[in-house]
């Protein structure tokens, strides 16, 4: 995977967006692969196109156009060979895409360090953190609004829900995106690799305040995260309520 990963860091290298999770480089590698494959095709097609226009432009020398109807086998080859090649490249892209898709969306790695619940509602993200015990729906769960605190390098599962309309949980640096649907709970995973503070978007239009449905993820080192959990664990730990939202920093 070393070779792949180096090409997967393409966006990161040109400074567009960081790689912040274990599978981000896989997705970027796929994007890079498609870029190379279709880029070559695209450039070739445009170059031939422009070359033909220049070469066969009427120059006032009385030359007439050729009469070619495309029925001739020799001529047809000019269409059939390139399109067979398109097919071969399609297969290549499909294979790599399957791999990436399986890794991100289908193969759920087992034994997560923590399970969180992310609930979209007009127009905020309600996050239920696992708390110190790593388990969801226990008394020490920590609730926040528009803030997701995670520990770097740990494996997370999330349960994604919505209370009213569709929303979409999106953290670009992790290359994660999943729609949240009222009436369903969708499970997925991520594993951050870089500490820092990043954007948490809602990527599905959800009404008037869609623009301001903006959150932050805080990827913290083990000590920082432990401190945050300590500071925010509900003291008494009764059944927590949604309005129990500690400010944090």
């Amino acid at each position, binding site marked *: 995977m070393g070779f792949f990963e180096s090409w997967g860091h393409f966006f990161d290298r040109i400074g567009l967006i960081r790689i912040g999770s274990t599978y981000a480089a896989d*997705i970027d590698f796929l*994007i890079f692969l498609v870029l190379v494959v279709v880029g070559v095709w695209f450039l070739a097609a445009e170059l031939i196109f422009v070359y033909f226009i220049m070469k066969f432009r*009427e120059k006032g020398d009385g030359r007439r156009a*050729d009469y070619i*109807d495309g029925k001739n086998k020799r001529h047809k080859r000019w*269409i059939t060979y390139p399109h067979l090649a398109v097919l071969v490249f399609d297969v290549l892209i499909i294979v790599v895409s399957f791999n990436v898709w399986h890794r991100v*969306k289908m193969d759920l790695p087992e034994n997560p360090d923590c399970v969180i619940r992310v609930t979209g509602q007009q127009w905020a993200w309600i996050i239920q953190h696992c708390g110190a015990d790593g388990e969801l729906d226990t008394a020490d769960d920590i609730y926040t609004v528009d803030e997701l605190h995670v520990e770097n390098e740990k494996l997370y599962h999330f349960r994604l829900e919505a209370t009213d309309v569709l929303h979409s949980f999106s953290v670009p*640096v992790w290359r994660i995106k999943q729609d949240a649907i*009222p009436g369903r709970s969708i499970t997925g995973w991520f594993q951050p690799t870089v500490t820092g503070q990043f954007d948490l978007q809602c990527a599905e239009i959800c009404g008037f305040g869609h623009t301001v449905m903006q959150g932050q993820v805080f990827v913290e080192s083990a000590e920082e995260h432990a401190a945050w959990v300590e500071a925010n664990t509900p003291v008494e730990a009764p059944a927590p309520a949604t309005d129990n939202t500690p400010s944090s920093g």
Partner: protein
Amino acid sequence: MVEPAVDLTHGHPHDDHAHHGPEGWKKYLWSTDHKVIAMQYMFTGMFMALVGGFMAYVFRMQLAFPGINVPGFGMVSMGEYNALVTNHGTIMIFWVAMPVLLAAFGNFLIPLMVGADDMVFPKINRLSFQVFFVSTIVILASLVVEGGGFAGAWTAYPPLSANETYNLTPLGSTLWVIGVGLEFVAFLLGGINFITTLMNSRAPGMRAFDVPLVVWMIVVASILFMLSVGPLLAGAIMLIFDQTLGTGFFNPATGGDPILWQHLFWFFGHPEVYVVLLPAMGVVIEIIATFSRKKVFGYRIVIFTVVATGVLSFFVWAHHQFIAGIDPRMANIFTITTLLISVPIAELCFVYIATLYGGSIRLTTPMLWALAFVAEFLIGGVTGIFLGAAGADIYFHDTYFVLAHFHYTFFPIAIIGTYAAFTYWFPKMFGKMMDERLGKWHFWLTIIPFNMIFIPLFVLGMGGQHRRISNYSGFSELARDGFQDIRVFATISLLIMLAAQFIFFYNCYKTWRSGPKAPRNPWKANSLEWTTESPPPHGNWHPDEMPVVYRGPYEFSVPDRIDDYWPQNEPPQRDS
């Protein structure tokens, strides 16, 4: 297999021109002449393009200069922003691309190109426009009713679109669905005529493979539309019930399913892309053949490919829903079908490029538009591969990468394709020749800024910028200075492009006032519309001039002929 087509209309009273219908403005309102209906569709569509373009101007200004008092509009609130984006998309697709490319050019060209005096069912044709006109009024009214226009995106995903407590636009959203529904009805009515006229009204001697490709493509597009729209119409009615009667077809709390709408919408929505693409592709190949003086490379390949694309296009819809909560295994299937559809589309592009080979290319204004269509549409096509690969779509879905991708398909279709068709058939439609110099200025000042708008938007999309957001300053990564500069650059390019459209209007005005009169066949093309007067009379040909067809439409530069073209209706014996 020469079945001289049965002509239902040749016998009827089109022959005497005097007694026709009411006079004056009423004549326009109630005309059943396919050319008049074509103009009605075209001018309504072009007016709506101005509305949609104005909306793009307003929201692009807001994005480049957040909070600005946009000249001609004012401050853009978050709700207004959403409504502008929603209706910009809706209008551009359903009230610009469809009426202009499919309805206007379909109406104008099909009878003229197959050598008929009108559509088979002229009154259904008129009804089609009238329903369309009502739909236009409904959608425009929906923008100004209390609560404002619908603001839940042109895809109208429930529950947002289904429930006024979520979307806050009780009237706007219902009018929006009604408007779109009526528009569908109008095109269903129009499609009947396109198909039957091609089947039944062809000139004597015109076999299936003598029909110009643009007619084939418009008819295939109509069939795709008719086959795909049914489920969505049913969905639209369920949506109206959810909105107004409180039913719960799309409401999970009452056993409904919001994802069902997405399937119905995209089952229609993806073929719809080809519904607008095919007429533009057809226009472009006619123009390329004429101005490279070449026979189309592989006429039959094109038709079979188009049909194959049409069939395949019914099996790709869920590529819009990879991350929408569908079963992830389904994504694999739709990745395969989506990437497969690149094969016929690439093939069409190869055919177009191959047609240029060995030609004698004349870069007139319509030819420039046609060539630009190919060059730009290629960008739209190749960027689609990124999105069809489900793994990459996880990142790109609902970003500006998607947005730039589909504008690289829709803009060539709706704008470039329209200008190509308009400038090419203008002499036939209005009987005058447009100014070439102004035409070329207009071309370059549209094409260059177009790329300067949307290439930067690809970059923003790769940087993670998501769609339908009125202000990015709250997102630390997206509010970077560099990104804001890119937004400003795109908006300024848009201002240049919009300003350049005045050249076009001036050119039309000038031509109308003082343009030279157009001959019957100014471009020396072969198809039948060029054999009648410019503009054609009522009934299209004088009764004793109804054309008879002897060959296909692309016999350019045939060896051993003096002329480098060979009109379809020229009897063979005159040539030896």
